[in-house]
């Protein structure tokens, strides 16, 4: 069906030049008609309209190309749509308005001619209408071109320049045409998709080896690649059967290399890393790099050795004086001051504080004799003073 329509379209295209010849005089007459209309106005106006028509003719030229392109890009579902029907595009309404004015005189003739040709070509009513509209779409483009070409020779520069750009435009048209061809491939392979589905269904019921043998001879068939297009049933095929054999008992295999897997994880994370996109992400990045405190902010974070030590052990240090320190006197006084000072110091650990106090204990122990001497001396001095 599709192929049939394609050939029909082609035949219409092939017929077009002859059709143009047939309707050629009509288009000429249309252009001369419009020129006469212009001629009635002043010469300056004529120049202006000519100027206006020049880009216009180019725009219709590109419009024709656009039609071709759209014909090519149309999906296969839309092929039943008429190729010549209007596609909304910018500036369309404006162009149509201007065209309508120009065509008033000639359009009827063109339409009847197109109808005749369509009548000759088409077999059923639908086809007739289609070819007719297709022809009309083509002819309207051609009549504009023809009109410009047959303009009097006093401004030969314009058509020449137009021709120059036309060539380049055709080049781009050619590239677009290539795309059309490629995109038509799936269309052509369409009928064979059913075949492919049937085969996959068949292969599913068959055992794996049978499937392999059934596929191997076909590998040399030339038309084979076309059958491999379209939808793919990713998980519906025959499994490989290496691990899924009934008797295979698989055990989980954790990575035996701990350092390797750690590094691998880090590398993977870096693969998905991207520059931070807002301040929060920036903070996340800094947190992960250890440049800021971790949330929730806790002034005891990273406190490893002191984590289990109660605050009381930092503050109530007098307990360490029990047992060696005299209950009163200058040493007691001194040591109490030491305890107060240490209890206020946040920079040393409780153990260090304890050690500090015990250092004094050992010190005083070592100097016991001297101290006793001094004390007795002092007390005797005091006695002397009092007595004196």
């Amino acid at each position, binding site marked *: 069906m599709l192929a049939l329509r394609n050939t029909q379209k082609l035949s219409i295209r092939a017929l077009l030049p002859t059709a143009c010849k047939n309707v050629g005089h009509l288009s000429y007459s249309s252009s001369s008609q419009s020129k006469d209309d212009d001629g009635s106005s002043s010469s300056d106006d004529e120049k202006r309209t000519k100027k206006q028509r020049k880009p216009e003719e180019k725009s219709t030229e590109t419009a024709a190309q656009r039609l071709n392109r759209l014909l090519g890009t149309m999906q296969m579902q839309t092929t039943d749509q008429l190729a010549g029907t209007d596609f909304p595009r910018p500036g369309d309404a404006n162009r149509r308005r201007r065209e309508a004015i120009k065509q008033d005189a000639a359009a009827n003739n063109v339409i009847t001619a197109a109808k005749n040709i369509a009548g000759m070509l088409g077999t059923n009513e639908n086809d007739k209408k289609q070819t007719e509209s297709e022809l009309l779409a083509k002819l309207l483009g051609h009549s504009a071109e023809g009109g410009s070409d047959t303009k009097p020779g006093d401004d030969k520069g314009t058509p020449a320049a137009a021709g120059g750009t036309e060539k380049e435009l055709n080049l781009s048209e050619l590239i677009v045409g290539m795309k059309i061809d490629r995109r038509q491939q799936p269309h052509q392979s369409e009928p064979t998709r059913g075949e492919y589905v049937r085969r996959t269904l068949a292969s599913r019921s068959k055992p794996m080896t049978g499937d392999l043998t059934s596929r191997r001879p076909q590998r040399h068939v030339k038309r084979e690649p076309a059958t491999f297009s379209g939808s793919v049933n990713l998980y519906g095929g025959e499994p490989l059967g290496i691990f899924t054999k009934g008797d295979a008992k698989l055990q989980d295999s954790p990575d035996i290399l701990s350092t390797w897997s750690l590094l691998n994880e880090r590398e993977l994370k870096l693969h998905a890393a991207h520059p931070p996109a807002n301040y929060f*992400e920036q903070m996340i990045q800094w947190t992960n790099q250890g440049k800021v405190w971790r949330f929730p902010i806790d002034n005891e974070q990273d406190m490893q050795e002191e984590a289990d030590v109660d605050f009381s052990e930092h503050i109530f240090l007098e307990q360490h004086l029990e047992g060696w320190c005299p209950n009163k006197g200058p040493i007691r006084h001194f040591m109490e001051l030491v305890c107060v000072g240490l209890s206020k110091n946040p920079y040393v650990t409780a153990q260090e504080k304890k050690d500090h106090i015990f250092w004094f204990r050992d010190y005083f122990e070592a100097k016991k004799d001297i101290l006793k001497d001094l004390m007795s001396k002092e007390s005797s001095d005091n006695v002397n003073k009092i007595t004196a």
Partner: protein
Amino acid sequence: MYLSRQLRQLPRSRLTRHIASGNGTHYTTAARPAAEHIEIPKRIERSPTDLLQALASTVGRDSTAPHYKYHDDPFLIPMSNIAKRTYALSKEAGRKAANWIKEEHRELFMHQEAQPPIEKFAPSMVYTEESEVDASSLQLLISQGEVTDAVLVYNLLEQKGIEVTDALKQSLLELVCFYNNQEPLPEEYIEERWFMQNNRRRERHGKTWKDGELAEKLYAAIEPKTPQSYAALIRGMAKYLQCERAYALLQEANEKRIQLDTNTYNAIIQIVSFIKDTAELRWQMCTSLLNQMAEQQLQPNLGTLNAVLECISTFGNFKLARSSALKVLPEFKQLGVTPSLGSYYYLLIIFCRERAPVSHVIIDILNDIAGKEFKVEHPKDTFFFATAMDVCRNHLHDKALAKRVDDLLHTGNNYDLIGDSFKEGIYYRNYLALLCQTESIEDFMQFYDMLVPNIYIPEPGIMEEILRAIEINGAVEHVPRIWSDMVIFDHTHRESLLLYVLRIMVDNRPNPELPAQQQLPKQCAKVAMDMYNKIEESVKRIKKVSFTGQMLGDILTLLVRDNSSFDQAVEVFNYIDKQQHRIPGTPADSALFEYIEATVLNKSPSQALLALQYAVENNMETSALAKRIHEGFTLSEVHLAKLKSLVGEGFINK
């Protein structure tokens, strides 16, 4: 009496009622908690970044604002691809310089500002030949992934004859194998990584494994050989493509009946394509490796799936590749292995090949994964989106599919898997090119406004595609906008683009009746003048663009179409006239004709005659010009004489 009794009773009854009602309410309040048991939820342990991640997820991407990394200085916001790269890398270079100062002048940074202290801000440890080291410092360095320091410390320990345990040696061997004894790029240089990967595409081509170096010495030092030591060396060799030896080592391990693990087999399967040449041999080897795994009862994982698919993707034989991929997938589905984006990437490159029939496998893939969120699980996961968009554009040419891929990209955190700047560029290049070929120009311009310039800046090639779309749609009103973008993106030294812009503007004469196009002649003239100045300036640049006659003619045409810029048109024409020996080619005839039209309108016959003289000197078509001059002006004697001397008297008789 009665009354007094009543009075006495009144408050009592009230009181009792009150008590009763009070009791009632009391009962209800007491009963309710018994019925509705309040369950205090258990505390959820949050990681330090959970809160930040929740906050970050509320901030979407604003396409009208530049990326976060660029907005520090509004004046310097980069607007072209090269500027973006330079800016980001300079910022990071600044960070590097600061880091260098910190390391170089460590004595200045011995103080601790923060309490609790932040280790990162303290100067890092430096290990030299004289350092006092022990096994614990080696342990620390390995866990930090510091390759060179770890190796140095290991050597020191050896010299001092300090015993290193086998476990530590094994860790070091893994570290050295993983990085091939090369210092990796530090983790924190995220921009460098983001932009660097462009040049890393070549990495898979040759062997980079360092034969006979430290890794192999470490391996030799571990006696007796454990499965771990085999695995580490095999994976290292496979990673750095010392394929034959890796495979030989695997065979040796098998002969000695040493049980390896799945990941080691994965590493070997990945390099099958380097060991065997043809597709059949590769597939054979692949299946035999898988069979070995099954014999050893190793559960395959995602890495196995991706390794097998990678091996299949290197098959030249399309049909074999396809059929084997379709056998592997159900197999792993039955094993309960969920494919990652990397697996789908391999599927795409297996099915969608340039010289193979068109495949719509991407539709099935998208049906499978649309709306899902992905996390990075495999290094190739980041290749999926760029490849998928490439398939949408070049293989299927399907706009709807491209939009589905884009939806997937913007699902959850999937954007993290875009990869790097290079892959992001490819992705958007394909997306924009596809849209401009398939969308109507209005819809396309909406996408353009959304993506350009903050998310993506089109390369010159894509700019040409956009211009082509504008030309095909005749949407000349978008040209001034595109031109200003081209100036910002630094595309103005591309001659082909300049010519294209000019051609669109000349070919599509603006229609003053349309309100959208009323300003166009003026804008086009501005663009033309801008272009003229740009080209004149470019003489000083290295990549200079030179005028051609055609180009100047187009500029001239555009200038005369706007009534107010006739003076500039005269200036440009004088330039053409004076430099006519230097400029290759001449303006188009139509350009001269329009110029003469303009001289008529502006009543300057001498300019018109100059143009005619130019036409005559350059052997162009002159009769039409002469006729127009003759008709348009009432010429003075002098001018008439000149006209006659230029073209002869023939024109009057016409």
